[in-house]
């Protein structure tokens, strides 16, 4: 871990948190563009870079900027921990009340970013989405798929892949962000009752290039969405999910059982046919799935005390009370 000289102490308005994970553009150009955009807003700001594992050239470039032009905070992980870990580490070190989360590459046109900050007076989270009108068709298709799948998980937000967000710091006091859930930050914040706004920003020129991802990336995104949609829908009542599933299996088992009994009436022997095994197997499977659901219920029941299911905004009483 290495620290650049800290910016002058005292509060800043905006803490810019930049996780450096795998996709990067040229460090100095990105910083210069963000810096220029923020200077135009007349807010005080700091930069916090969190490097996910070794990025030697990037770290060198940042050190150069830090030395010559603007003191940056730089945190370097000793190995890769993922985007969310970087984000949370940056948040922990931030001193501003508003956090501006930016990618380490050009995703939206940097000069448009102040529009996001202007929203922050009235909302807790402002999430950008890219105006894809200039994008290539593969990029657009990919964005559309991601958005559609995210909708399955209950997200109403456009372009979850856009990493440009402005977030009030106190949101992170309550928000629990787990592994690779950063695309769903706006949705999770909204579930906690925070106000979330969406802002359309022009897409950066370089983001319109044709890029390809590893197929495993798509698979892991898909699995994350499935897990999240289960959590948001059945967190309170897991047995509604497991119980329904178990009931389907038991119903199938009973159906094959009845079928078997009818055939037996018609003179066919029952005990030496594999369908008997199938019947018993289906019913046993159904019971087991339901039992897993009950364990899940027990976990919720026992852990429920520590996490309330609602968030109180305020309690209004007459001033002389309490």
């Amino acid at each position, binding site marked *: 871990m290495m620290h650049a000289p800290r910016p002058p102490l005292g509060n800043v308005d905006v803490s810019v948190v930049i996780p450096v994970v795998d996709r990067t553009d040229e460090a100095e150009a990105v910083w210069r563009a963000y810096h220029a955009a923020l200077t135009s807003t007349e807010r005080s700001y700091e930069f916090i870079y969190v490097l996910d594992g070794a990025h030697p050239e990037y770290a060198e470039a940042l050190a150069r900027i830090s030395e010559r032009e603007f003191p940056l905070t730089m945190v370097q992980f000793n190995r890769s921990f993922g985007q969310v870990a970087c984000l949370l580490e940056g948040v922990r070190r931030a001193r501003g009340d508003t956090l501006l989360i930016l990618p380490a590459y050009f995703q939206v046109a940097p000069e448009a970013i102040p529009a996001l900050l202007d929203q922050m007076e009235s909302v807790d989270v402002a999430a950008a989405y890219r105006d894809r009108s200039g994008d290539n068709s593969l990029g657009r298709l990919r964005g559309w798929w991601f958005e559609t799948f995210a909708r399955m998980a209950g997200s109403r937000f456009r372009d979850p892949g856009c990493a440009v967000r402005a977030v009030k710091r106190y949101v992170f006091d309550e928000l629990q962000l787990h592994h690779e859930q950063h695309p769903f930050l706006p949705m999770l914040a909204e579930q906690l009752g925070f106000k979330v706004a969406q802002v359309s920003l022009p897409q950066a020129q370089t983001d319109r290039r044709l890029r390809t991802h590893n197929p495993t990336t798509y698979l892991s995104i898909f699995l994350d969405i499935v897990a999240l949609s289960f959590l948001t829908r059945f967190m309170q009542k897991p047995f509604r999910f497991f119980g329904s599933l178990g009931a389907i299996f038991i119903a199938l088992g009973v159906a094959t059982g009845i079928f078997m009994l009818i055939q037996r009436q018609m003179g066919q022997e029952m005990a030496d046919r594999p369908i008997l095994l199938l019947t018993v197997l289906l019913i046993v499977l159904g019971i087991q799935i339901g039992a897993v659901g009950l364990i899940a219920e027990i976990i919720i029941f026992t852990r429920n005390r520590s996490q309330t299911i*609602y968030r109180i905004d305020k309690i209004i009483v007459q001033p002389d009370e309490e």
Partner: protein
Amino acid sequence: MVAVSIIVPMYDEEENVGPLHSAVTQALAGWELDYELVLVDDGSTDRTCEQAAALVRRDRRVRVVKFRRNYGQTAAMAAGIEVARGDVLVTMDGDLQNDPADIPRLLECIDDGYDIAIGWRRRRQDGSARVLVSKIANRIMARIMGVAVRDSGCSLKAYRAQLIKGIPMYGEMHRFLPALSQLAGARLIELEVNHRPRRFGVSKYGFSRIQKVMLDMISIRALLSYARAPLTWHLRVVGLSLLVNIAMFGYVFLGQHDSYVITGGVAMVLASLTLFLVAWGLAGGLFAVLEPNVRTYALIAASLSARLPRVTSPRPPA
């Protein structure tokens, strides 16, 4: 010191806030009773909260809890119960379909030593489909839970605060409180109450769908037996599975047939189920060890048998 807390969840009920307040005030006017009215604004998008806040300025007995967003009726009830300070908690709907004039009768029952007094809407003023769904749900509830609460969907209820303050509330737990409490040994009484048609607005909380209610009841039944005996509650299921299993093995070895492969397979599958259920019960027991307050509900229920102090609320002069 507050004797009675009246808890009312409200969701988009701006027209009903004022009338509700005056109805409650009127109903309890003759009683020299310290009460508070806890209004829970469940993330309304209309002016419910402003109306309620205006009431707070006029009447010091009113307290308002405002949610950040809509969390549903159970959450609103849970928050109201959490915030309430009374020894007796009265819950009711915010849409004025319950008649606040019934509250004194419920309180009398609590005074007489009952732990819960629930309203029974004998003549419901809702659409017939709604009534039918609710009737079926109640019938199933009575069957599975083994208790008879005629109208579990009626929100107008009075509880001893000690009884429900410790019960974890999530999902749709508020619907099952009377049944749960009755199973736990609380003394329960049903009272016929008025049910009035909606005067303003539309119904916000939708139908209780039968499948969901059934699944919820199975899980709550299991949770209740778990809360009573976290380490041994599953033994009955294990025992049943073991019996079937032994019978199957007996059939395989003693029966007069020559299909050992299939029947042997069936016996093995059943044996795996028995093993699974043992492991499953142990896993559940683990949580009881990790979280000592699992037994809270059982303890609350047990402590009820020792008589609770009476809540003295002077009757109005005859």
